[in-house]
């Protein structure tokens, strides 16, 4: 137990969902006769869900500040449509059309942000309005007819990295390079952190957990590199997946490592206390809502790239998928709690379920039922684990001495 903690950190609880995700993947792989863990299916998992996961990044931040954004689907659809129309009908070059679409996203975000931050209207109501406005607007401007997208966009929505270099590697060399790069980064980051810990802290960390972490990290990345790189020639780690990974890194840093990120959690945890600590609550609301619509525009445009056309019903109920991912990832409805990484795991749970059930030939109707049940189960599990006094299931799995932990709550000590 202690050894595991030294490797993975004290908070093993956060790995529960990862373990569940891996279990789910393995289960589907067995049930489908090995069709789950294949290069092309993993590529599809990323390409086909990148847009939801990108929305989930923004949604996590919105939910952490204690708001909700129901308009993301409509905004994604609208921005995608504006982009397609600008390209098709107004003869914009494709990149200018994309910039226009993103710009519109930012403007819509500012609109939502204005009502939430300056006028104090709850996000639920504001974005319910925006949801209707932009769903209507997308039908209006498109005359309900799909508009073909610039073919360059297909690269963003469903593209692959190029093939190059020697063939003896037997895999896509772009993917291989990415993998090597990622492994190098893991090694560098681990060693650097180790050095800093030993420099600053009195209780030195031995070297072996670092080595194990590096071996683990290298193993996982190496395996994924191999998996993504050995698909059909011409395929690689997909571009939408790459965009997603870059966004996750950026937003993980923003939420965990910047003042703005800290402000988001402060506002969500206790708005009044945050205001009295010098946090500009309005600005935090505004920027978070703005960012959400920006990401919605990006997701919408990537989806259009994958679909090769912008349709009038693009984005319908995407907000629900994004919200579900965030809650499965353990965020709190009341705000203040949740991380990007956990949200991504939550989103991947949904994606794997979708993919696995489709591979098994389960219809969309039953898939929906199962997804609903999984959402409830995941959240109930999370609530159960966090309830004080209940011994978490992870702890039970790891802790041989769990018999000592009796019912009761440490929080109740104070009288």
């Amino acid at each position, binding site marked *: 137990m202690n050894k595991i903690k030294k490797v993975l950190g004290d908070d093993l609880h956060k790995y529960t969902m990862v373990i569940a995700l891996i279990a789910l993947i393995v289960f589907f792989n067995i049930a489908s006769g090995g069709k789950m863990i294949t290069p092309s299916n993993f590529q599809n998992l990323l390409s086909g869900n990148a*847009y939801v996961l990108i929305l989930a990044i923004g949604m996590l931040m919105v939910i952490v500040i204690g708001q909700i954004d129901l308009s993301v689907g409509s905004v994604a659809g609208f921005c995608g449509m504006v982009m397609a129309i600008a390209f098709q009908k107004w003869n914009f070059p494709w990149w200018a059309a994309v910039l226009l679409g993103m710009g519109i996203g930012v403007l819509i975000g500012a609109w939502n942000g204005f009502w939430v931050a300056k006028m104090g209207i709850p996000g639920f109501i504001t974005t319910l309005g925006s949801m209707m406005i932009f769903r209507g607007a997308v039908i209006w401007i498109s005359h309900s007819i*799909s508009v073909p997208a610039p073919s360059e966009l297909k690269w963003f929505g469903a593209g692959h990295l190029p*093939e*190059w270099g020697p063939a003896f590697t037997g895999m896509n060399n772009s993917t291989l390079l990415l993998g090597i790069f990622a492994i190098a980064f893991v090694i560098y980051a681990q060693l650097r952190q180790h050095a800093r810990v030993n420099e600053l802290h009195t209780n030195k960390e031995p070297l072996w957990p670092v080595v194990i972490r590096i071996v683990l990290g290298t193993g996982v990345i190496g395996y994924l590199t191999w998996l993504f790189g050995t698909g059909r020639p011409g395929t690689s780690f997909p571009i939408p997946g790459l965009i997603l990974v870059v966004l996750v890194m950026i937003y993980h840093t923003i939420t965990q490592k910047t003042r703005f990120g800290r402000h988001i959690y402060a506002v969500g945890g206790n708005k009044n206390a945050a205001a009295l600590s010098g946090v500009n609550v309005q600005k935090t609301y505004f920027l978070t809502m703005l960012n959400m619509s920006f990401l919605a525009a990006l997701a919408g445009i990537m989806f259009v790239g994958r*679909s*090769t056309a912008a349709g009038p019903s693009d984005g319908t109920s995407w907000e629900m998928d994004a919200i579900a991912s965030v809650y499965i990832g353990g965020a709190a409805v009341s705000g203040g709690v949740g991380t990007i990484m956990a949200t991504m795991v939550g989103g991947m749970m949904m994606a794997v379920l979708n993919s696995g059930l489709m591979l098994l030939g389960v219809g*969309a109707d039953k898939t929906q039922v199962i997804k609903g049940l999984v959402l409830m189960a995941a959240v109930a599990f999370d609530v159960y684990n966090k309830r004080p006094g209940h011994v978490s299931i992870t702890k039970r799995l790891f802790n041989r001495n769990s018999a000592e932990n009796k019912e009761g709550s440490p929080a109740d000590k104070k009288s």
Partner: protein
Amino acid sequence: MKKLFALLLALVMVLSMTACGGGRTEPAPAATTPAAKPAEANSSTEAPAAAGGFEADATIGVSLPWLGTQNWKEAEEMFKSELEAAGFKPIIQAADNKVPTQQQQIESMIQNGAKVIVVGPIDGTQLGAVLEEAKAAGVYVIGYDRLLENTTGVDGVVQFGSVKTGELQAQALLDGLKAMKGEGPWNIELFGGGPADPNAPNFFKGAMSVLQPLIDDGTLTVVSGQTDFTQCATMDWDNSKAQARMDSLLSGFYSDKEIHGVLSPNDGIARAIITSCEQAGQEIPAISGLDAENESVEWVWSGRQYSTIAKPTDALVAQTIEIIKSLQAGNGMPATDVQVKNGKIDVLVYELPPVVVTKDNAKEVFANDPGRLALLK
């Protein structure tokens, strides 16, 4: 951290700009050859079975938009039983009218090793990338009931002539007006189908080619003046939206007038319109329909709905399966004289004729359909 991102971005850009001067052999660009020469259309290196057909027990994917209307549910059942009867392994999935779901379902069919994928698209323009992916994986793609647009990844489309259907709907409406409402001029209203469905504007176009001359000479009056497809369209083929529109038309334009006829693009919408008229205290108008849904067959029989149009799902499914068998045997796509531009390529289209059903001919039309025949009591 910042440096890391910069490096990563630079890497991606360099990679994407580098000419693909090495690495593993890429497959030949898929399906750029004109569809007119179907046997060669799939002769990419990745589809070795193309010329020689494929196993007789191969997996066949069928991706349907949803199961919310009777015709799709029937299609699902017929594909299942008939593909199985023909010795294939069918995977049939419906996407709940969500484009992303349909995209993923098609991907999972490729994943499951389907040799042919039959696609009844939700939106025929939005499956480009996945269909091209299917093509690249050596899978035949057949559009079902609706055209697959804006993609090179399609081998052929089986559908009822949609313009022809529209013409028949308009003709049925005119017949109904004469039979039910005496001499003209008549007051009518127009309804269109779901705008995301490429068939819907075609139905409307076909109908208007018949109706427009009569509107121009005053025989028909569209009281609301709404004659544009976008004005008349019904989002998502949603009956409740059609009913809401009819309610407002009746209260807005017909408080002192009688409505004689309505052009309806399908049965569900036709029933919604009839219900709306009844609730507004109007006589039931002459009306057109489509799909011969059970409920509407009963209504036609009882005289509440003047007409519907049967697009016998069994004929459509049978035609599709015939194509699949031809592909299996290595004979490529069967010949057809209709080709339609889909925005990227010319697509082979196999058109079937629809049949107008009124009370007078219902028994004949459904002579071979015991299920519907039982409704005619």
